[in-house]
């Protein structure tokens, strides 16, 4: 799991790759003499036409749907608007997102702390390695019935389930990050007798940060999935509950609306995460480090 994370940051590839391709394409002469504005417009169009098309097809194809399980897109959006404006979805979303935030935060704190310790102590890492890999292989969704069965449908158990599921990618990536710290930087720390606390906080942690953030990026969608599953399994609040409740009361457009909304929220969170990442790692992107 860690590897995508490591590979996803948009690093510029080997210089020749991009420049040569660009020149080949330009030499074809398609963009000749166009104003900057037209280019930007073309770019936006290129990126959005397919979404617009999918939307349009869905809209028209479902408009006269006779299948009660496939409501028209119009109905879905109307019920979405209604439940958004009357606050039903709003309160559910704030409950779900609070759980997600708390669970993720817990996972990040525990994951980073554990990762720093394990990354720095080789023997310990080797000893617990199989245990870690076993735990992170346990399908997180299978924990849901157990934790809810044991601790009930309250907020705490949901947060712990999310935290448990999200912890592993953070932990493993932190270990990778610590292991990847430049040996020269380490030596510097040793030579200047930087105290352990300061060494962790000001040397190892920042150096491992790109990897840690990548781990959090992997954890985020896992957290969202576990959040929804825990609410779909048993809850009395939240977005998952909204979907489940709509489905149980045969409010088909609302069921669709809820599911799509969770998707949109997932998408927005991933976009926000990119912004966050750019901020917290600006030194990393600016330095052009790999």
């Amino acid at each position: 799991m860690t590897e995508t994370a490591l590979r996803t940051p948009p690093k510029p590839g080997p210089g020749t790759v991009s420049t040569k391709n660009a020149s080949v394409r330009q030499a074809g002469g398609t963009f000749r003499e166009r104003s900057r504005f037209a280019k930007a417009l073309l770019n936006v169009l290129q990126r959005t036409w397919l979404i617009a098309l999918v939307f349009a097809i869905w809209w028209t194809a479902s408009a006269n749907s006779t299948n009660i399980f496939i409501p028209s897109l119009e109905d879905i959006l109307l019920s979405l608007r209604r439940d958004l404006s009357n606050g039903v979805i709003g309160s559910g979303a704030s409950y779900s997102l609070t759980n997600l935030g708390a669970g993720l935060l817990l996972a990040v704190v525990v994951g980073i702390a554990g990762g720093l310790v394990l990354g720095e102590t080789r023997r310990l890492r080797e000893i617990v390695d199989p245990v870690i890999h076993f735990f992170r292989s346990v399908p997180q969704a299978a924990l849901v019935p157990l934790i809810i069965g044991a601790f009930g449908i309250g907020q705490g158990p949901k947060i712990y389930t999310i935290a448990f599921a999200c912890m592993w990618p953070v932990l493993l990536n932190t270990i990778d990050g610590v292991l990847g710290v430049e040996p020269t930087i380490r030596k510097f720390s040793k030579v200047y007798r930087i105290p352990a606390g300061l060494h962790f906080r000001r040397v190892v942690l920042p150096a491992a940060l790109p990897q840690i953030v990548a781990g959090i990026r992997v954890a985020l969608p896992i957290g969202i999935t576990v959040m929804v599953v825990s609410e779909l399994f048993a809850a009395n609040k939240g977005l998952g509950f909204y979907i489940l409740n709509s489905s149980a009361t045969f409010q088909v457009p609302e069921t669709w609306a809820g599911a799509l909304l969770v998707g949109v929220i997932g998408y927005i969170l991933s976009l926000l995460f990119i912004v966050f990442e750019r901020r917290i790692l600006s030194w990393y992107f600016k330095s052009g480090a790999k």
Partner: protein
Amino acid sequence: MGLTSQRLLAVAALLAVWQLVIWSGSLPSMTPGVPAIVTAIANAFTSALFWTSLAQTMTAAVTGWVIAVTAGTVLGLVIGSVPMLDRSTSILIDFGRSFPVLALMPVVIMLLGATAQMEIFVVSLSCLWPVLVQTIYGARRMDASVVDTARTFQIPRLLWFRRILLPSATPFISTGIRISASIAILVSVGVEVLSQTPGIGRQITLAQQAQRWDQAFAYLFFAGLVGWGIAGLLNLAEGKILKWNRQAND
């Protein structure tokens, strides 16, 4: 003391802590102790129901995964090697990959029922994205020299696809395959938990509802074991298949 015995000791310590916590009474009373879990694990070995459930889960997971890998690789290679398509699909793909597919479960159950086909559908829809996204990365990163070489020798489209684009993207594709394998198990168990489609996930829920916590933990243990085993196997296979990649980029 050797590493292996230290590892075993660590596992033993973990189990001891578990047992102590149980004795201390700080976990809910139904949580099973170590002996109960061990017995349940042993019993599962001889239980036909267990093996059937495991087979059901694995069948759905593997089928959905294979579908996703095939579709994701082909689509990804096409999209990643045609810049116009790449730009057009980028938002749609970003949306798809961040979509928690399990949230669609109630809708999918309405449409397809709580069946094995439904499970396979959800698994392949979830597994598609990592493969697709990784393959697109891989296809985008074609080396300019390789592209030029293939062009000067006028390599036909299909051969180029099969012998150049595909192998050059395999390091990325295999990462996608590995990620999606763990997702396949996660999602198939998740689907079973939520929809009561037959499989390990359903057995865990049933065991929990019947207050057979020892059984539930045993099944959980096996689910983890299977996921672990598959991850290990794929790592091994990747190392073999991609020998050229490591060597060439030493």
